[in-house]
């Protein structure tokens, strides 16, 4: 259990490896963010028949860097009604979780055959991930919960109306989708039998059929994808910064590089969440290695899968209109949470049924029956709530048949 680099105790070589790995992870995220912002602007531009950034560097590749330098030179304002300490603390709370979540992602390593994803460096075995805490998945959930604080406190401490509205929206929607996110990850833990991301990737090695996306039956993956999009506040769930309604949302009052930090954190989180999805559902760096060293292939497969998710997020932004707030809450609470909870219990029943020798068909049929009863109860509850609302809304004091008809004509 855990990264074998620590098996022989701490010495200078081990500390060096830890420092180098942390630096590589840090650089990966930073370069990734610079690339991702350029990638998103370029792809969106293509989808809208524009050229996109093309001035700074070849194909505009250095545009993000130019923007960052520009932001550093801009005046930093803080509104006079703001809560100074919290206002300054919020960018740190936003950026730190984005970096920390990435540490648990294995970005390479050979897992097929006799290999278990270790690499021998300077006489020490080590995993190709910055950290492998035994509670990896819980750490992921904890960090996504801390990220809520960054956004919530930024809006609250600004002492202004639009940021406050944005942060209240953000905390409500992020909290709602965190439940669905957590429930869909339990299905992965159930099949892999461990909370450590390295163990989860090891358990998926082999072929595409061994990946968790297939073994958990696609539903947890879809739920995770939707919940992650909402968790990232990306379109179509970007009510937090709906420009038409609440200006810039929670970062309206932020300027200069402090605003840049929120911007960076948002894109870092996109990269990190994509990497987490690759790790949990698509086997991480797992993939065939036809020719050449398998280690290089593992980096290749990880990057390809990551890019596919990044493209998907950009595509969603270009293609879908924004959700209305009640639609957002209904999707999260009344559909995703019951669906992922039911699917998880069904998966558990099938697994235990296999151990105990139960008939799979009977297990699935019983599970289906329970699901129908539960869905009936849920739909009934929604109908009751709707009827109560209508009864509450209908008797308007000045609304009579003639009046409304006259109003239309």
């Amino acid at each position, binding site marked *: 259990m855990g*990264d074998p680099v*620590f098996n022989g105790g*701490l010495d200078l070589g081990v500390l060096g490896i*830890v420092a180098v790995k*942390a*630096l590589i992870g*840090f650089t990966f995220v930073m370069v990734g963010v610079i690339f991702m912002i350029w990638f998103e602007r370029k792809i969106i531009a293509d989808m809208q028949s524009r050229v996109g950034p093309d001035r700074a560097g070849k194909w505009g590749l250095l545009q993000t860097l130019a923007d960052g330098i520009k932001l*550093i*030179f801009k*005046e*930093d304002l803080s*509104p*006079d009604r703001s809560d100074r300490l919290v206002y300054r603390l919020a*960018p740190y709370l936003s*950026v730190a979780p984005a*970096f*920390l979540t990435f*540490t648990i992602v294995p970005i390479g390593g050979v897992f097929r055959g006799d290999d278990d994803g270790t690499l021998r460096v300077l006489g020490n075995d080590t995993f190709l991930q*910055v950290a492998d*805490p035994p509670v990896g998945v819980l750490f992921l959930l904890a960090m996504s919960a801390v990220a809520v604080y960054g956004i919530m406190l930024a809006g609250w401490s600004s002492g*202004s109306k639009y940021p*406050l509205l944005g942060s*209240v929206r953000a*905390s*409500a929607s992020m909290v709602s989708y965190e*439940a669905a996110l957590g429930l869909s990850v*339990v299905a992965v*833990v*159930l099949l892999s039998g*461990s*909370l450590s991301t390295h163990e989860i990737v090891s358990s998926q090695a082999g072929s595409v059929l061994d990946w968790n996306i297939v073994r958990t039956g696609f539903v947890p993956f879809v739920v995770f994808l939707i919940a992650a999009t909402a968790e990232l506040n990306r379109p179509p769930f970007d009510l937090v910064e709906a420009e038409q309604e609440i*200006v810039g949302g929670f970062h*309206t*009052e932020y300027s200069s*590089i*402090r605003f840049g*930090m929120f911007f960076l954190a948002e894109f870092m989180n996109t990269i990190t969440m994509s990497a987490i999805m690759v790790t949990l559902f698509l086997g991480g760096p797992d993939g065939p290695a036809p020719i050449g060293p398998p280690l290089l292939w593992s980096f290749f497969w990880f990057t390809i899968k990551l890019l596919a998710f990044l493209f998907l997020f950009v595509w969603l932004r270009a293609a879908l209109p924004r959700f209305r707030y009640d639609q957002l*809450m*209904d999707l999260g*609470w009344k559909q995703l949470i*019951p669906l992922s*909870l039911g699917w998880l*219990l069904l998966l*558990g029943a099938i*697994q*235990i049924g296999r151990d105990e020798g139960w008939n799979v068909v009977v297990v699935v049929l019983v599970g289906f029956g329970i699901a129908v009863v539960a869905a009936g109860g*849920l739909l*009934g*509850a*929604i109908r*009751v*709530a709707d009827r*109560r*609302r*209508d009864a*509450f*809304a*209908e008797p308007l004091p000045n609304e009579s048949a003639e009046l*409304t008809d006259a109003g*239309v004509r």
Partner: protein
Amino acid sequence: MDDYLPLVVMFVLAVGFVLLSIASSKLLAPSRPTSAKDAPYESGIVPTRDNPERFPVTFYLVAMIFIVFDIEIIFLYPWAVIYRELGAFGLVEMLVFSVAVFVAFVYLISNGALDWGPLRRSRRLDGTLDGNRTSSSTIRRIPSRTQVEGEAAPPAAREEGASREAVAAGAAVGSTSEASTSTEVPV
């Protein structure tokens, strides 16, 4: 505990990065605050009211219902790791627990705890469902350019050499007598 050392290193790197960026901006950027710059942003309007201190109770309800589900998820994780050792007993326990939480959830929904959006104020009106009101009867068509130039345009406008836009605008706004010959009669 050694497994958490890289997390500490990464945390230091991340905080250092933010600190460095903000410090460099403090050194390089100008600082000329005015009262207008420091005022809360209100789309250019001078703020007249303070921030609301009270919010719709549904936001608090969401947070409280989330706690219920969060606790359920926390109990699910240990079960998911060791469910093979617990076997059928663990599954039944988990089912009973989930049913209890789910029934409470259904009760909350039926009480409207997760209802959002505006109340339905208006009912469907009978007058709007008239069979004679179709998309062709309620929309007035403006004559197309060829029709304007060929037949319906006022002769005066053509003699003065007015631009096509002016002719089209005239046909749409002013010269209803000629334009209405080629449009359908509005209801």
